């Protein structure tokens, strides 16, 4: 049950209410009809017994007189009497029967063609000497009552169903409105805006209490995140200062080194220290990007031009390392609303990754593709690639792959690209380019900003 969506649950509830209502209506009708039939039966039984008591045998003449008396006494004329022989021949009566009725109680309908009667009940008794006494009464006013009753019951239950379904849908709308509002908050927080909160209307309802609890949880998370970020900052700061001193000492020792071996070792040590400092720099940068504050400085810029500049910038480095860097730029102008410097950093990281992790002779292609309401920055190489199972690891922090351990780099390049893409409400994906790796940075774009497809 708990896995059903709300809409289905509401529909099921409505169905249950309808079934219960209809069952109650039918039950009431049946019971009412039975009660009325019992009342009518009791009356015709009394009338029949007033003509002749049970087990008494009276002469026909007495019976005829009593019937005539009773018929006269009744100004309502709603009780009919017929005294007949058992061969069907009537001796006396105030109504005419067109068919023989069975002994005991039976229903009469308009099919019996009794004058002025459409619905009724009859009691047929044997009164001795081959005679039968039939007593009958109309149930027409009661039938009318029945149809009114059906009308009342139907109307009543229809309004109950209307009220219930209306209530359900109003209730559903209130809940879905709340959920939508909460969803917006959650989306904003996923986007990195930790200041967003769910609106509380102050009515103190359960939903309000839940919203308040949700907000308290967000406050708590924000506090924890701030303290983690402070700790990160403090660690980075406290470690970077002695590291910088260490680096200065190493650089000095390296410059003054007497022999080639010492000089070589010190040069390697310098590279290691630079690596560590770069790692701290990258950690602080990721923290800055993930904070989302940089959105305040978003401006429109031409992504196609930036890609071209980056390709031109990196062409010498690629050449130096024996790679071929190619730009495939069919789009002249792709305006993106964002942080140009950060997007540049993202593209640079992707290009540097491609250069760093592929052997000489690899072709690296840079291109832009327009997608639905987005633009894709693609850096693709035809190198050895990364196994699909390792793609997730490559994108995670410090997620350096075994093959890359020996090379420089600190495993924070791709996470930073991902952070930059997320800041722009985009994403980074790795795809097997068969052969090689295709890194895709998807950035959402306002429609109509892509121009000049050649």
């Amino acid at each position, binding site marked *: 049950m708990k896995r059903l969506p709300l809409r289905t649950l509401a529909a099921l509830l409505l169905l249950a209410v309808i079934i219960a209502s209809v069952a109650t209506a039918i039950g009431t009708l049946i019971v009412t009809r039975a009660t009325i039939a019992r009342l009518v039966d009791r009356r015709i039984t009394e009338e029949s017994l007033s003509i002749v008591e049970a087990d008494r045998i009276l002469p026909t003449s007495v019976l005829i007189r009593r019937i005539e008396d009773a018929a006269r006494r009744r100004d309502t004329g709603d009780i009919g009497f017929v005294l007949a022989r058992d061969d069907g021949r009537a001796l006396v009566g105030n109504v005419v029967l067109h068919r023989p009725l069975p002994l005991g109680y039976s229903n009469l309908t308009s099919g019996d063609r009794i004058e002025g009667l459409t619905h009724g009940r009859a009691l047929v008794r044997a009164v001795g000497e081959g005679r039968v006494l039939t007593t009958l009464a109309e149930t027409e006013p009661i039938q009318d009552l029945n149809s009114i009753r059906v009308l009342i019951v139907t109307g009543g239950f229809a309004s109950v169903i209307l009220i219930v379904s209306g209530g359900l849908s109003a209730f559903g709308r209130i809940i879905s409105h709340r959920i939508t509002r909460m969803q917006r908050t959650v989306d904003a927080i996923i986007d990195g805006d930790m200041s967003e909160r769910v609106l509380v209307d102050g009515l103190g309802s359960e939903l309000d209490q839940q919203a308040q609890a949700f907000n308290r949880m967000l406050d708590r998370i924000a506090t924890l995140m701030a303290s983690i970020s402070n700790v990160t900052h403090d660690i980075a700061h406290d470690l970077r200062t002695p590291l*910088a*001193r260490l680096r*200065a000492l190493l650089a000095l020792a390296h410059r003054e080194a007497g022999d080639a071996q010492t000089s070589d070792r010190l040069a390697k040590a310098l590279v290691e220290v630079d690596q560590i400092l770069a790692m701290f720099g990258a950690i602080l940068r990721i923290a800055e990007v993930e904070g989302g504050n940089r959105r305040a400085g978003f401006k429109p810029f031409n992504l196609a031009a930036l890609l071209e500049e980056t390709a031109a910038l990196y062409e*010498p480095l690629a050449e*130096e390392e024996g790679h071929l860097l190619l730009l495939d730029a069919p789009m002249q102008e792709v305006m993106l609303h964002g942080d140009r410097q950060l997007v*540049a950093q993202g593209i640079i990281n992707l290009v540097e990754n491609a250069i760093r992790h592929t052997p000489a002779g690899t072709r690296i292609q840079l291109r832009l593709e327009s997608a639905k309401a987005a633009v894709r920055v693609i850096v693709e190489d035809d190198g050895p690639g990364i196994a699909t199972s390792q793609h997730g690891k490559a994108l995670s922090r410090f997620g350096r792959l075994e093959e890359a351990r020996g090379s420089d780099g600190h495993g924070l390049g791709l996470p930073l690209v991902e952070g930059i893409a997320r800041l722009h409400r985009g994403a980074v994906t790795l795809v097997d380019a068969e052969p090689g790796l295709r890194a895709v940075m998807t950035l959402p774009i306002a429609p109509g900003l892509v121009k000049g497809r050649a």
Partner: protein
Amino acid sequence: MNLLIVEDDRSLAAYLSAELRSCGHEVVVAVDGHAGLRAVLDRKFDAIVLDRMMPHIDGLSMVRTLREDGITTPVIMVTALGQSADRIDGLDGGADDYVVKPVDVDELNARLHALVRGRAWMQSDSDTISAKDVTVSPTRMRAWYRGIALDLPKTEFNLLAELVRNADSVLTRKMLYEKVWQFEGEPAAKLVDAYVSRLRRRISAQVGDDPIVTIRGLGYMVRA
């Protein structure tokens, strides 16, 4: 050089002053903005190393006050945050350059030299800059080495011009990256190396050798 360090963190101030003294500078330390302003009014400095975050008067207000009073002493801002918005604020406020904590003394020293020499060059009216065998004309985008005109692409030309402008000062990769490419972000050390070796190959191919000296563990330099 005659330097003023304004830094409220006494241990960092002591470390910086000791290191900069060992580089051959004369150093005065002020522990807050008020003391810093008093020191500036007292005597003339070649450059000021100014912490951005200080109690009372922070670095940003201090540099603004200096500039409003017409004091143009070069200022290097020391910022702990390392965030771009702060860097831009620092430069807007009238600072000439910035370094991010933790301070690498070699980097700071290189920047101080570059800053003071850059000022000296800007004050001369000449269109060309020269260093020993190299002459560069930034307005005409022309360069000569040992009297031979060089044919250089734009980036390589800018790189050479920056080195010549700061002749006899070491330019770190970070400084070159910021000045030549004006790209924000982590310095792509290998990128600068790639361009420098391209530049050297180009000049060597045209002249036979090149004027660029690699200072290992630090950066590049052209001798005056």
